[in-house]
C-alpha cells in the first residue's frame, strides 16, 4: 500500500462570500502523465477513481486510487493496476450504485475492453471487436455506458461508426455509420437515444427505434472544424454541451431549440479540453482548458436564452499549475470534482 500526501489549497472564487469553509484541493501524483479518469459509482466504493496513463509506448497503465475523505489521503495498491494497450481514450466504472452488481471497469483504445476488479487483482473479462473477419478494429475514440440500462455501451470510432454493444452477450447490437468523418465522442441521453460529435463538425442525435434517420441538431459555425467533446446532461436531458477543436468556447445546446446554441461559454483563454455536468442537479457544468483553469458554470441560473450568452460569468474558478486535460464530476459526492494535468490528479472540493 502506498500513501500520498495532500496539498490543500483554497479554491479561487468570484465572490468571497460564496467560499465554503471546507473548500480545498487534494492532490495525488501518479507515476505517468494522466490521459483520462473515472469515478466509481458503487455505494460501497465511494471516492474511488481509475486513472489512465498517456504514454507514447504501446504499453500503458490504468490504476485504481482510493481517496479517504476523513484523512484526506490517497491510497493505492500495486495489485490494482493493470497494463493497457495504447493510452486509454476513456474509462468508466459499472454505472450502478448497487454493490450486488459486478465490479467492472470499461476502457477504450484499440478495442472496448471490460475488466473485473477483485480485492487483490484486476482481470481482463472480455474484449469486444466489431470486425469478425480479422483482428483489426478501428480505434475507439470514446464510449458511454448507459446508466439506465447497464447492458448497453455505445462506442464511437475513427471509422465514422458508432456501435451499441450488449455487454451481457458480449455481442454487437447495432452498428451505425453515424457521421461523414471520424466520430470523436458519444453520450447517452435516455433509453434508446444517444448523440455523437465528429470531425464533420456536427452534433447528431440517434434514436435506436428509428435507425434509418439521424438528426443534426448543431453544426460548428467554424467551417471544417471538428467537434471533439460531447456530454449530455443526464439530470436535465434537454441540455447537451459540446466543444470544438482548438476552441475556448463551451457550447450548451437545448434540444428544443436546434441549430442555435443556448449558451456560448467563452471565458477560457485557451482551448477547452474536457467538460462534465454535475450529476443529479444538472444545473452546473465544469470545463477545463489549456489556460490551466477549471471553470464552474451555473447554466440554468442564467436568464434564458441569453441574448449575449458569451457574457455569462463562471460561478467559480480554479487555477492549476498546468494545462488541464481531463475533468470528471463525482457521481456520489456532488461537492467533488476530479481534474487531471501532467502526472497530477486533483480533487476539488467545491
Amino acid at each position: 500500500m502506498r500513501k500520498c500526501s495532500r496539498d490543500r489549497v483554497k479554491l479561487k472564487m468570484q465572490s468571497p462570500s460564496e467560499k465554503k469553509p471546507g473548500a480545498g484541493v487534494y492532490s495525488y501524483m501518479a507515476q505517468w502523465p494522466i490521459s483520462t479518469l473515472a469515478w466509481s459509482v458503487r455505494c460501497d466504493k465511494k471516492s474511488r477513481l481509475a486513472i489512465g496513463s498517456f504514454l507514447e509506448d504501446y504499453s500503458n497503465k490504468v490504476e485504481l486510487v482510493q481517496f479517504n475523505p476523513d484523512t484526506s489521503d490517497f491510497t493505492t495498491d500495486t495489485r490494482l493496476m493493470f497494463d493497457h494497450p495504447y493510452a486509454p481514450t476513456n474509462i468508466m466504472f459499472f454505472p450502478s450504485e448497487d454493490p450486488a452488481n459486478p465490479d467492472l471497469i470499461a476502457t477504450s483504445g484499440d478495442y472496448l475492453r471490460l475488466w473485473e476488479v477483485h480485492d487483490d487483482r484486476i482481470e481482463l473479462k472480455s474484449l469486444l471487436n466489431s470486425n469478425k473477419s480479422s483482428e483489426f478494429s478501428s480505434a475507439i475514440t470514446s464510449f458511454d455506458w448507459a446508466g439506465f440500462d447497464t447492458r448497453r455501451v455505445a462506442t464511437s470510432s475513427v471509422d465514422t461508426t458508432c456501435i451499441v454493444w450488449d455487454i451481457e452477450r458480449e455481442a454487437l447490437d447495432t452498428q451505425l455509420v453515424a457521421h461523414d468523418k471520424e466520430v470523436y465522442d458519444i453520450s447517452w441521453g435516455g433509453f434508446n437515444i444517444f448523440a455523437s460529435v465528429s470531425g464533420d463538425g456536427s452534433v447528431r442525435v440517434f434514436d435506436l427505434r428509428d435507425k434509418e434517420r439521424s438528426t443534426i441538431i448543431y453544426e460548428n459555425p467554424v467551417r471544417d472544424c471538428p467537434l471533439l467533446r460531447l456530454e449530455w446532461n443526464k439530470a436535465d436531458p434537454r441540455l447537451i454541451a459540446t466543444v470544438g477543436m482548438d476552441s475556448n468556447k463551451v457550447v450548451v445546446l437545448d434540444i428544443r431549440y436546434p441549430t442555435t446554441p443556448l449558451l456560448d461559454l467563452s471565458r477560457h483563454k485557451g482551448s477547452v479540453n474536457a467538460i462534465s455536468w454535475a450529476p443529479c442537479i444538472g444545473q452546473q457544468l465544469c470545463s477545463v482548458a489549456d489556460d490551466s483553469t477549471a471553470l464552474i458554470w451555473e447554466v440554468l441560473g442564467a436568464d434564458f436564452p441569453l441574448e449575449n450568452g458569451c457574457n455569462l460569468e463562471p460561478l467559480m474558478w480554479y487555477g492549476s499549475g498546468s494545462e488541464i486535460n481531463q475533468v470528471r464530476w463525482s457521481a456520489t459526492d456532488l461537492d467533488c470534482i476530479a481534474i487531471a494535468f501532467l502526472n497530477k490528479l486533483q480533487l476539488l472540493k467545491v
Partner: protein
Amino acid sequence: MTTVEGFVGVRKGAWTHEEDNLLRKCIEKYGEQKWHQIPLRAGLNRCRKSCRLRWLNYLKPNIKRGEFTEDEVDMILRLHKLLGNRWSLIAGRLPGRTANDVKNYWNTHLRRKTVSSKRLDWKGMKISTNQNTEKINVIKPQPRTFSKKASVRMNAKITMELHNKRELLGHPNLYKKAPPPPPPPPSSSLSMETPANEIMWWERLLQSGEFVQETPATTSMIGCSDGTTVTNFWEEKSSMFAGSTCFEVDKICLGKHHHDMDFEADLWNLLNTEEEYAI
C-alpha cells in the same frame, strides 16, 4: 478514334521525361487543383487521372525515396493495427511517403508478419472475445437538419417573448429543476421497442408546467399569435438525391393560450412526422 477529355486517342503507358517536365511546369504555374484542366494546360495527351496519380506518386517535390526506416516501419505497424488498410490515412502520418508506397511496402514486407493463427490478446494470453457470429447489418441513417431560417425565427421570437415575460413579472429565472429520466421498463433483451403505456422522458420533456413556470393572463403570449406558418422547418440531407428534399410542417404556432406558457412539442415527434404541432 475515341475522344476523351478533348484529346484524340489518349496516351497510356510509361511517362517520358518530357511529359514529366510539362506536368511539373503546369502544376508550378497553376497549382494542384482542377485536374480536368491540367492535361489541356500542360499540353499533355493524358487523362486527368493519370496526371494526378503521376504527380502525387512520383513528381511531387516532397516525396521521400529509398528504404523505409525502422521508425517508419514501426509507425506503419502501429497505425495499421489502429486503422487497417486505410493507406492514405497512414501515409498522412509519414511525411514524404505516398499511400501507394506504404501499401506496396506493407504488401511486400509486413503483411505476413502480422498474420496469426489464434486470437490472442496483446500479451499472448487467451481471452474472451465476442465470438457471436450473427450477421450484423451496418446501417447508415439519413441525416436530417433544421432549416436555419425557421430555427432562427423561432428562437428570436421565443427569446423576445421570454424577455417580455421576465420584465413584466420580474422573474430572474423561468426554470424549474428538471426531474430525472424514469428508469426503463424491465426487459430480458435489448428491445428497441417501448411499451405502449410507457411515456418516454423525451415525450414528456416539454409538457406544460414541468420545466416552465405558469404565468398570469396579463403577460404576453409566446409565439405567433397570428398563427403564421413556419415552412421548411427541417430539411433532409441525402446523398441519394441531388438536392435536399424539404418537408413542410404546417401551421407551427408558437404558443397555445394567452394564460400559459406551454412547450408541448416533442422534438422526436416533430422530426419524425409531418403533422401539425403546437409548441
